[in-house]
């Protein structure tokens, strides 16, 4: 336990009370007077030029109030990514709101707003589009061949980029190796499956200013990107913060077509326009990029890495969007930086195809790399007889080492070794049953995987927003209002940020309330992504609370006849340090500050001092000083049915260096949810497409399988290693993503341990296992 009064406790999320009775606050619930229903016409073809479009019959339909075709949109190329500046050199601006060429099946080609949803649907049927079909290509290797269809004009062989990374001398490293391991590891396209559909209500006023309400992960990103694509100054867009949204996981981290289209329809109709995606539309809006990774590792006789080489082919999909950043994170945090090796080299290739868009998904490029690295380490340990825990410990960075991704920093707090050791101990790693245990057709297996290096935000990433801000305002009843532009996507900052503010202010957590605002009233904040909010927003909230407290103590000076430096706040009382009897309630101090200048009381007039007057408020807007690394280790037990090839995950132990636990129940919830997504990635989730047309055939929950409560293990244990990060708010750092990155390789390794089948492509279906067993 720690010395804090609020930090580290399990507290119920304040928004849970509202959510269990219905949850009014979701953007999907918003209705405005006079609101129109918007809907999109989508291309059935994966690659086509729009030779002509006649929308006159649709426009003439009674009830249709606005219609947008490719001819009606600003011709401003953009990248959908929210969290990088719109004009950054680090993004590829290859999209238009509506384009004259479609590059994936389902791409929007027109939008309609009408008084009812059914009129809008009917109007779509009346739009006549002449498509001139073009040859399409779905396989990234084929897309690079001579003569393949050109997807974006001037992009030779459809190659967007060939980023590289290198360290030391790779040739020398392999020459020095006694053993060389190599393999190809493939990962599939998966969808985030947030439960609340993407929805947007845009409301243009008489002067052409657009107010927008949307289910997205980045309020200021929405404002900036929307203004940019519409050709408006940012102040002409006001994005309103919802109290919470129904999940995101990266799937709401970029501009979807519905947001600019709702805005354009509203600007035309001068009425609010609402567009809600169908689940099919959600499925084809964003996904995790599929990747093919070739990995080769050189090892010395005594088990040291001498060289690590990797090559990645990433299917960037029809538009580049997040792909350049995904592959960068993939190379650093998925492949190269986690373990020490003097010689390393990586070559990446980013290729356009006519597949549906990729995007962000919790873990952001790392799962595709971690699967390769952690599977191959298992192969190495198996072949050379090393213990997988010891082997990882041997190659892991140490606390105090230079930060592998940025030599300007050190690993000031770093508990990877403790994650491995404590995780192994809790799991019973050393005493695990002999491989392939279990009688009969069902075999037990044990596996592990790790993520030695991760992020607490984006500081250091090229051209990525990372600052946060907060406003803390004290009320005359002793409570505090906290406002930040962060979006709670289920991630729990509604609780965590209130705890941080309460701890700093010295009041109870129940006395702090997170309130809303809009881009007009709130300080700029980066997105809810990159495991950053507790750390980076937490630092901003703590700073704003500290500023409010400073003012509070100044006002209390005359009341307590002591100087502010000698005062403190504890349990809602301002008191002289060390003299707990000499105290006044926070509420009384705030009342004094807010009171009229001269009070007439029963005891006569009471003077207050001019300098004490005013709302007690603290604000902050700042970037975090560093990007400290969390670390994690996952231990998994599976049971494999050798007759059916089915895999059941029986038990999971996950250890994570979190710096400091702020809300224990919330932290466990992140890990348990991450495991669900990780098991899905490992065993069943897979977006599939019609080979001819590229149409998604898994765009609903009947065909897209993810784990239900029955497929989840009964036993999930989380271990939080507290290393007290010096730059973090009360020592905290990032949590959210590694818990989804590590399960897939840990499961693959456990399956190998159970039945001796090494599957190097995800998902590990029963067919692949049976094929490996030679049964089919």
């Amino acid at each position: 336990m720690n010395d804090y009064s609020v930090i580290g406790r399990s507290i119920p999320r304040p928004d849970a009370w509202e959510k269990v009775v219905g949850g009014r606050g979701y953007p999907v619930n918003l209705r405005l007077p006079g609101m129109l229903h918007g809907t999109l016409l989508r291309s059935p073809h994966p690659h086509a030029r729009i030779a002509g479009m006649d929308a006159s019959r649709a426009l003439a339909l009674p009830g249709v109030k606005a219609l947008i075709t490719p001819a009606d949109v600003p011709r401003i190329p953009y990248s959908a990514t929210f969290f990088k500046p719109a004009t950054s050199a680090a993004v590829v601006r290859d999209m238009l709101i509506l384009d004259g060429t479609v590059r994936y099946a389902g791409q929007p080609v027109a939008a309609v707003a009408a008084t009812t949803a059914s009129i809008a649907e009917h109007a779509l049927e009346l739009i006549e589009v002449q498509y001139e079909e073009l040859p399409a290509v779905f396989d990234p290797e084929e897309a690079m061949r001579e003569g393949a269809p050109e997807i974006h004009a001037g992009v030779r062989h459809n190659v967007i980029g060939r980023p590289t990374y290198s360290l030391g001398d790779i040739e020398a490293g392999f020459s020095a190796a006694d053993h060389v391991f190599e393999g190809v590891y493939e990962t599939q396209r998966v969808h985030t499956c947030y439960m609340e559909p993407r929805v947007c209500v845009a409301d243009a006023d008489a002067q052409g200013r657009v107010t927008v309400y949307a289910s997205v992960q980045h309020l200021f990103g929405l404002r900036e990107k929307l203004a940019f694509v519409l050709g408006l100054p940012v102040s002409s867009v006001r994005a309103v913060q919802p109290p919470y949204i129904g999940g995101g996981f990266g799937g709401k981290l970029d501009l979807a077509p519905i947001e600019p289209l709702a805005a354009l329809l509203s600007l035309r109709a001068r009425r609010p326009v609402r567009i809600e995606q169908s689940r099919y539309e959600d499925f084809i809006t964003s996904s995790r990029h599929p990747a093919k990774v070739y990995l080769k590792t050189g090892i010395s006789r005594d088990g040291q890495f001498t060289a690590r080489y990797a090559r990645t082919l990433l299917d960037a999909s029809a538009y580049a969007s997040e792909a350049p950043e995904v592959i960068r994170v993939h190379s650093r945090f998925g492949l190269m930086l986690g373990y020490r090796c003097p010689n390393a080299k990586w070559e990446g290739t980013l290729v356009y195809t006519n597949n549906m868009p990729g995007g962000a998904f919790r873990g952001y490029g790392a799962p595709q790399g971690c699967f390769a690295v952690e599977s191959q380490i298992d192969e190495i340990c198996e072949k050379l007889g090393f213990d997988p825990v010891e082997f990882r410990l041997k190659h892991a960075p140490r606390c105090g080492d230079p930060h592998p991704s940025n030599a300007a920093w050190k690993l000031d707090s770093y508990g990877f070794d403790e994650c491995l050791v404590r995780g192994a101990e809790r799991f019973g790693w050393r005493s695990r049953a002999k491989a392939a245990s279990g009688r009969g057709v069902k075999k037990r297996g044990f596996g592990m995987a790790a993520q030695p290096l991760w992020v607490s935000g984006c500081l250091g990433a090229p051209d990525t927003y990372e600052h946060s801000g907060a406003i803390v305002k004290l009320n005359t009843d002793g409570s505090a209002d906290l406002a930040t532009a962060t979006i709670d996507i289920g991630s729990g900052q509604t609780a965590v940020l209130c705890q941080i503010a309460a701890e700093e202010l010295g009041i109870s957590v129940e006395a702090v309330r997170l309130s809303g605002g809009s881009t007009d009233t709130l300080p700029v904040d980066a997105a809810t992504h990159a495991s950053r909010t507790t750390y980076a927003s937490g630092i901003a909230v703590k700073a704003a609370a500290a500023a409010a407290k400073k003012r509070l103590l100044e006002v209390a000076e005359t009341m307590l006849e002591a100087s502010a430096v000698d005062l403190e706040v504890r349990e809602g009382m301002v008191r002289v340090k060390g003299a707990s009897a000499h105290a006044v309630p926070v509420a009384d101090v705030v009342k004094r500050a807010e009171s009229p200048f001269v009070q007439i009381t029963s005891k006569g007039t009471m003077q207050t001092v001019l300098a004490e007057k005013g709302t007690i408020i603290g604000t902050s807007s700042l970037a975090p000083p560093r990007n400290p690394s969390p670390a994690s280790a996952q231990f998994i037990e599976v049971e494999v049915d050798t007759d059916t090839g089915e895999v059941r995950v029986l038990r999971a132990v996950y250890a994570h260096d979190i710096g400091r636990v702020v809300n224990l129940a919330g932290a466990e919830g992140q890990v348990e949810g991450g495991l669900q997504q990780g098991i899905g990635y490992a065993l069943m989730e897979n977006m599939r497409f019609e080979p001819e047309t590229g149409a998604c055939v898994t765009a609903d929950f009947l065909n897209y399988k993810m784990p239900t409560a029955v497929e989840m293990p009964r036993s999930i244990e989380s271990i939080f290693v507290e290393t007290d990060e010096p730059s973090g708010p009360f020592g905290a750092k990032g949590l959210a993503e590694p818990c989804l990155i590590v399960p897939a390789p840990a499961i693959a390794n456990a399956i190998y341990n159970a039945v001796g089948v090494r599957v190097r492509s995800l998902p590990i279906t029963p067919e692949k296992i049976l094929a490996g067993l030679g049964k089919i």
Partner: protein
Amino acid sequence: MMQLVTLEVNGEQHEIAVEADGALLAVLRDGLGLIGTKRGCDTGGCGCCTVLVDGRAVYSCMMYTLSAQGRKITTIEGLAADGKLDPLQEAFVNTGAVQCGYCTCGFIMVAKQLLSETNNPDEDAIRHAIAGNLCRCTGYHKIVEAIRLAAKGG
């Protein structure tokens, strides 16, 4: 084609014009403003839209409004109607079973049916009862815990 129907929802009678071939979900949300019932998919795949019809949990996106006539419909708004939370609602809050919360009401309605039929369901029974509902945030662990807690009387 619109048709006038009478629906009994949360103990109240509502006379409302509905699409003859429309689903109950849209009527609850858009017609009656009962927004606690959510749409996650519209195709019977997620359970966000779960309500009780004569005490049995159904996907309201898959039920014709017309076939709900003359039956007792309970939505999340029908729990805690007297201002006091249902033990399930309390348990979901207190165990941390609510993250983004979009799936929550559907799970509570399914659990409501389970607990009306069994006093003390074991873990397998709980997991199977909620297997028709998807949650992407929690890994179901604390949802199972919440239902078990509520079964024990909070």
